[in-house]
């Protein structure tokens, strides 16, 4: 990519700045015209007369490549004749006044002949190690089977997507809240048939590193750029919150069947699992999510034998999978719930079972590697149990539950406690885009760092600055983290939490050390470029599941205490506890904030956020979808495990979400004394469980 090198050039103060912030009166507005049915062949469009100045834009108007690509998956930007899912953009419309454009779009109807389309090719995985023993029940072994399903989850952010694109004289300027600016560049360049050097993206701050802004903003950046090219004006394309709710990618639904063979003393002998992901019409990110889900199933405990199958199911609904890191959570939810079933079957304390079966030094891991460092799971579980008085409460609540005659008529709340352990994989080592970083030390002693990752907030930028200042021994005020602007920055992959914590700090230190040496040998300004290289550990093979999947792991253990109120069929969370090992904390407040955010995601996923893709299009469910409110969110007790020998901080943004959902689910199941099949645990499900005769539980 051609890069301008005329000193420091901050796009926010640049003469071209106007390209990124034109006066709102100059901007035109674009809206997507979407299919109202899930499948079929489009034979026409009915709409009122097009108001003067407005313009319709169809698939035939796209000058470049008509498909949108994310990793290996491609799908049409605007489908020609075939409808693949409900809400699929088929045409675009652009005009001067947003209200008029929206009013027109509201009246457009597509004439579609129902037709069954060929589903997209699925992705499958089959992994097996060792020989799964035959059913040995009766000879001191037990077979435990469970099946679970989890629902889709919306990103829940109210700041819906907004893109500004400005095409002038063959160059494109895009301003978008994206975690992957390099992908915006390549997508826009492909669609407009331009050299990527002609596309410049200003990526603004994202709403959190666990956001929804990886590939989805690129799609709408393409639409805005196409419209701007067609009308010759800067175009703003913004989704309303409801539109965003319908079509933005959700955490995929997952169904899992697990079968374990365990010895009577609790040793896990073998695990077989089948995991199915629902990914909508196009399996965007599905491969990574599936791999991570299977890694989630296989990582925490020692498995002498296992056999796992994973597959991806498509449907005529919007593509799921905003980001790959949700995968571990899906696998861990199924595994940790299944472990609870094993413990109930064998009448073993769940903390003791987990400690007994955690992978230890010397035991081969599922990849065949033998870990060199101690897995902190045993200590974490011991600390969590001590902090919450888990074992006593688990035994007491279990006894109370066993002695109940009729749940629905119970006057007192039904109490339950659940535990779960989880990990977060930081820096997936399979393929992906390399992370580059560039630092320039100017004559005035000012250090400019060009990091291709969008910082989620000022605190993250301050941490990066502090690290650079300490390495170069210059004041922190002399360090600038340049706003991510693709014309100036090296390219890179998505800005994810694990990259921000794992790769960028290493690159900053590497760059600053090189700058420190270089400034002694040559006159300022000096520039150093660094690229993240994999360590010498065997690389991850996502087909064979061998090698090291992540750069590092963070671990945690969670306990949830709940009470179910029978007459209200309602779950009240009494206490949530999280014990975490993620290395030293660079910023305690930010670490706590990330864990609270994760725990809230888990509470919503497990209890309140009920989402159904209604292919009839009559019921959006928007008004019933509820983020957890203050009543569902008790204070979260967080404890960081001290004394870890690891000196580098590791990512922890997903730990709360991965661990807390199974802990809550296990606690609710103990309170009810029954095996609920799925999350979210809706009030209807609770009501049905409470009405079941006790003998059948």
């Amino acid at each position: 990519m051609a890069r301008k090198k005329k000193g420091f050039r901050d796009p926010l103060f640049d003469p071209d700045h106007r390209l990124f912030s034109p006066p709102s009166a100059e901007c035109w507005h674009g809206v997507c015209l979407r299919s109202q049915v899930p499948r079929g062949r489009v034979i026409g469009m009915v709409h009122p007369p097009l108001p003067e100045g407005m313009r319709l834009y169809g698939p035939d108007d796209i000058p470049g490549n008509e498909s949108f690509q994310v990793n290996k998956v491609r799908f049409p930007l605007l489908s020609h004749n075939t409808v693949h899912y409900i809400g699929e953009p088929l045409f675009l419309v652009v005009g001067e006044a947003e209200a008029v454009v929206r009013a027109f779009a509201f009246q457009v109807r597509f004439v579609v002949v129902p037709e069954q389309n060929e589903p997209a090719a699925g992705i499958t995985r089959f992994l097996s190690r060792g020989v799964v023993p035959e059913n040995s029940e009766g000879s001191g072994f037990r077979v435990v089977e469970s099946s679970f399903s989890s629902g889709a989850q919306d990103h829940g952010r109210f700041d819906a997507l907004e893109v500004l694109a400005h095409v002038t004289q063959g160059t494109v300027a895009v301003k978008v809240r994206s975690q992957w600016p390099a992908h915006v560049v390549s997508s826009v360049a492909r669609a407009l048939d331009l050299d990527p050097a002609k596309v410049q993206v200003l990526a603004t701050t994202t709403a959190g590193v666990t956001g929804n802004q990886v590939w989805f903003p690129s799609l709408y950046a393409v639409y805005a750029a196409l419209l701007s090219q067609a009308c010759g004006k800067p175009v703003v394309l913004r989704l309303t919150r409801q539109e965003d709710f319908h079509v933005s990618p959700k955490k995929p639904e997952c169904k899992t069947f697990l079968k374990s063979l365990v010895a009577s003393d609790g040793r896990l002998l073998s695990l077989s699992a089948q995991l199915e992901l629902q990914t909508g019409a196009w399996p965007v990110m599905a491969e990574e999510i599936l791999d991570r889900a299977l890694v989630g199933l296989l990582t925490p405990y020692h498995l002498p034998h296992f056999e796992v199958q994973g597959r991806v199911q498509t449907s005529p609904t919007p593509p799921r999978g905003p980001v790959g890191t949700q995968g571990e959570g899906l696998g861990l939810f199924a595994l940790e719930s299944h472990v609870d079933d094993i413990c109930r079957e064998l009448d073993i304390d769940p903390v003791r079972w987990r400690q007994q079966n955690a992978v230890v030094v010397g035991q081969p891991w599922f990849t065949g590697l033998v870990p060199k460092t101690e897995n902190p799971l045993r200590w974490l579980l011991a600390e969590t149990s001590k902090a919450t008085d888990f074992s006593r409460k688990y035994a007491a609540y279990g006894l109370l539950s066993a002695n109940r005659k009729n749940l629905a008529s119970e006057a007192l709340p039904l109490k339950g406690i659940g535990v779960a352990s989880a990990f977060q994989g930081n820096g997936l080592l399979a393929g992906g885009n390399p992370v580059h970083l560039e630092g320039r030390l100017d004559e005035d002693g000012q250090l400019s760092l060009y990091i291709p990752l969008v910082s989620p907030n000022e605190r993250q930028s301050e941490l990066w600055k502090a690290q650079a200042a300490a390495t170069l021994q210059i004041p922190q005020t002399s360090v600038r983290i340049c706003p991510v602007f693709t014309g100036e920055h090296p390219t890179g992959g998505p800005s994810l939490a694990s990259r921000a914590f794992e790769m960028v700090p290493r690159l900053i230190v590497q760059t600053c050390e090189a700058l420190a040496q270089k400034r002694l040998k040559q006159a300022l300004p000096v520039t150093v470029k660094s690229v993240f290289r994999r360590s010498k550990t065997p690389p991850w093979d996502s087909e064979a599941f061998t090698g090291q999947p992540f750069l590092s792991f963070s671990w945690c253990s969670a306990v949830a205490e709940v009470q179910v109120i029978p007459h209200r069929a309602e779950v009240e969370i009494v206490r949530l506890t999280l014990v975490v090992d993620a290395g030293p904390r660079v910023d305690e407040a930010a670490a706590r904030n990330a864990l609270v955010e994760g725990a809230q995601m888990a509470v919503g996923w497990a209890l309140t956020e009920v989402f159904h893709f209604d292919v009839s299009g009559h019921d959006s469910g928007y008004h019933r979808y509820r983020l957890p409110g203050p009543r569902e969110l008790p204070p979260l007790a967080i404890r960081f495990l001290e004394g870890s020998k690891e000196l580098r901080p590791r990512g922890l943004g997903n730990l709360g979400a991965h661990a807390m959902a199974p802990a809550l689910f296990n606690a609710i199941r103990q309170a009810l004394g029954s095996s609920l099949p799925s999350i979210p645990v809706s009030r209807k499900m609770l009501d049905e469980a409470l009405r079941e005769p006790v003998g059948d539980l």
Partner: protein
Amino acid sequence: MKVQLILNGDDLALSGEPRDSLFAVLQQRAGLFPERVCCEQGDCGRCHILLDGKEVPSCLIPFFQVREQEVVSPEGFQNTEEYRQFRALLEEEGLVHCTECTEVQIFHLFSFLEQFPQADAEECRLAIGEIPCRCGSKPVLERGARRWLASRPWPVVGREVPRGHH
């Protein structure tokens, strides 16, 4: 149509269509709420303003209805000493800025605390929950609200009892 109003302390006239909401006019004509998308149903709290001292969602207020009224937006509030003090207190408690909700939460919570200076912890929690967001700042806001209330003298309600009288 043109409507005369006092916006963040300035006496001015804004023009808009009669069907426009106050939010749309403030965003498009007055440059307020930059890059903010509102649910336009009064649910999200992202467009809250003070209208003659009362906190309301501006997306549900017709533009023409604010004639001769005083409007204070979060941007206006950010220029006040109270905002600086309250924000500093929250940062001491460990506030991590959320691009989506922090400014809105501070505006909303401060309005609530001004209106209900005797609010208890549960009421503060409920008030914070009125601005839905995924971020993890709620515990910090709760602690901050309690500290803010504790640092303020309670308003005297009824007749003050003289010292020494029981």
